[in-house]
């Protein structure tokens, strides 16, 4: 084996509450936290208080240990080990942002925060609850009165689903639970859309995945309140490798919402998730995510959906924070008249590179796709669009519209657009529009001449720019995105 991963020992970490050693270490790691102008308001963290944590780095033994601790079936262990070998054999992708600084030996691949699944809010441990409260989870809970699976580190600790949905056969669980309780459904779909061999990070995820959401909507069932999950990275150098699988059976309808905020740490973290969505005939699935990673996280996510006849698949994707994000939600339109909507907004500040986009693959007649991408670059940040529209032969009447707009704040921001097109059917209609604009002095002056301060005017222009995405978000997420953008915008003009 060419690559080796030292530090492969598995250790038990025992820390005691608020005075825990690791908490002190965390503070010393970044003494300037409070003085950084860029300080991220959600950059709090709880003392690390974990039941089990694997050592840094990755090995076959760690993969086996993860599977053993989860008491997984043999087939899953085999999938993991196979994926581990693929991960080792694949080179780092070099066609996009610079990933050379990722050190796979410096990452924890598994942390289990508490022994068992929690179901009632009252039973959730206090420090974990505090984290959620600061993120507004209880409010989301109150407002939506819906099932909320919240992922804390590698596994869900809190899970709750309305009884009526359970009666209808809706399953909303974390993936580990789903694998235990519904092994046959998981086995049927797991890794079918995104096999381990798809890319290096999909392989890594398949090898060490933990947590994530499993959603199953039976045929004809409409879930009219969004299903929500919260993801969060807390431990230093903690890789989070959640695995999400959503299945909408024929004629079903669901909106799954996921938000992420991460505390600020000084060493690099890796987030490599895999999300697979299946929208069967006539199903409608919307997946909304707002991601806001601290500025040291590598966010490398593979998201793919398949839409069969008359199905609609929608990705609504907000990307803030992170050091580097690479994320291109895609939809394979395999059935007649299937439809894809992909809306994304990205904001990159100093030192950040967000390479986001969308892919739509038309492989049946009458399929349609609509892609709207909005990117904002601030300071020396880079936010770009990378997308693919592919139309297979025989996809008569396929239609696709792509619109990507970039907004640049200041003189040094950068935006790149890479719209790939591969059209192999004459009778199809593909449109692409792109614009790049700067927050102009005329616009700022106009707003300021009415008494609005420069910062507020700039924020107003930015919010207006992303309004088409904002209005697609559930209210509280729109509010959160608004707040996050306001924080990112502080002092960005003048």
């Amino acid at each position, binding site marked *: 084996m060419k690559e080796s991963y030292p530090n492969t020992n598995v250790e038990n970490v025992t820390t005691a509450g608020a005075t825990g050693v690791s908490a002190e270490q965390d503070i010393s790691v970044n003494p300037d936290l409070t003085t950084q102008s860029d300080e991220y308001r959600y950059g709090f963290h709880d003392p690390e208080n974990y039941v089990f944590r694997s050592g840094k780095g990755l090995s076959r033994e760690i993969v086996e240990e993860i599977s053993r601790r989860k008491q997984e079936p043999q087939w899953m262990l085999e999938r993991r080990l196979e994926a581990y070998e693929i991960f080792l054999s694949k080179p780092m992708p070099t066609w996009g942002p610079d990933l050379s600084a990722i050190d796979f030996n410096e990452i924890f691949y598994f942390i289990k925060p508490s022994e068992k699944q929690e179901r009632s809010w009252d039973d959730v441990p206090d420090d974990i609850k505090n984290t959620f409260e600061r993120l507004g989870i209880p409010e989301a809970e109150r407002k939506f009165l819906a099932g909320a699976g919240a992922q804390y580190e590698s596994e869900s600790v809190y899970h709750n689903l309305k009884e009526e949905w359970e009666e209808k056969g809706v399953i909303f669980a974390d993936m580990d639970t789903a694998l235990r309780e519904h092994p046959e459904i998981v086995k049927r779909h797991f890794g079918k859309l995104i096999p381990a061999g798809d890319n290096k990070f999909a392989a890594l995820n398949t090898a060490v995945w933990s947590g994530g959401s499993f959603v199953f909507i039976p045929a004809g069932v409409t879930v009219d309140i969004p299903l929500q999950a919260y993801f969060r990275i807390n431990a230093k150098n903690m890789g989070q490798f959640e695995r999400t699988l959503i299945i909408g059976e024929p004629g079903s309808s669901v909106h799954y919402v996921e938000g992420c905020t991460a505390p600020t740490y000084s060493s690099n973290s890796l987030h490599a998730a895999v999300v697979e969505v299946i929208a069967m005939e006539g199903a409608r699935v919307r997946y909304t995510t707002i991601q806001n990673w601290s500025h040291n996280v590598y966010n490398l996510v593979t998201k793919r959906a398949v839409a069969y006849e008359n199905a609609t698949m929608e990705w609504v994707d907000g990307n803030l924070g992170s050091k580097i994000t690479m994320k291109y939600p895609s939809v394979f339109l395999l059935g007649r008249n299937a439809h894809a909507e992909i809306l994304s907004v990205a904001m990159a500040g100093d030192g950040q590179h967000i390479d986001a986009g969308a892919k739509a693959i038309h492989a049946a007649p009458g399929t349609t796709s609509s892609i709207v991408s909005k990117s904002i670059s601030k300071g020396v940040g880079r936010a770009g669009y990378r997308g693919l529209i592919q139309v297979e032969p025989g996809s008569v009447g396929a239609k696709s519209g792509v619109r990507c707009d970039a907004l640049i704040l200041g003189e040094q921001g950068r935006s790149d657009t890479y719209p790939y097109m591969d059209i192999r059917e004459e009778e199809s209609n593909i449109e692409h529009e792109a614009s790049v604009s700067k927050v102009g002095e005329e616009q700022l*002056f*106009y707003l300021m*001449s*009415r*008494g609005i301060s420069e910062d507020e*005017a700039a924020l107003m222009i930015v919010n207006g*720019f992303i309004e088409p995405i904002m209005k697609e978000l559930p209210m509280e997420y729109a509010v959160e995105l608004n707040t996050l953008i306001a924080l990112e915008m502080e002092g960005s003009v003048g």
Partner: protein
Amino acid sequence: MIQDKRFEEPLVIDSLRVRIEGKEVVRGVSLTVEPGTVHALMGPNGTGKSSLALALMGHPRYDDVEGTARIGDAELLEMSPDERARAGLFLAMQYPSEIPGVPVADFLRTAFHALGNKKVSQIAFRKSLEEEMQALGMDPSFATRYLNEGFSGGEKKRSEIVQARTLKPRFAILDEIDSGLDIDALKAVAHGIGEMRAGGTGILIITHYRRVLDHLPPDHVHIMAGGRIVRSAPGLQLAEELEADGYEAFVGEEVSTS
């Protein structure tokens, strides 16, 4: 009679000079606008009228200035545009910017609060805005349209007046507010301006045409040429002369007082 204390002090412009890329486009303008009066500033194109307006409001490309402009104690030329607005100045622009994604009502309510007005609920604000729009002959649905986006020339002008009337500035500079308006719109806009004057706002209206002035009428007319005010007179007299003789008769004249 004007009761409001905000409307007691004049706008005093003294020896204002404006340079753009080293070239002097406003060459020493002095002008006093009393509260509750309308002053018209007329003159050919390229004579510095809009430059004067933009410099007074604080446009970043018109910041190479000399002289003073004040409302009471507020030294306008030392302030940022938003501070000038809070000091009571308003500029209805010749070419209002389009701001995609920002509804008129949200923008204007934010501005209303930024000017220190008491908080008004979204619903109440929207209601009075819609009434204001209807008075100016605008469809109230403009309240939820994105700011100036896709507005016709005339709609932009009416929207500027709606903004001015909502924000109730001490002094409003209206730059070619009458261009692109049909007869009915012109009357509505002139009526709207007249009401603002009655409420105590001092108005400096920049125009090429007498039409709008007939509806007001102004207290003073000034003619600007070559970056200076070359003639000033009360009432409509100068506007009438202009109509008879054209601008050429005034260009090159030295400043004269009325």
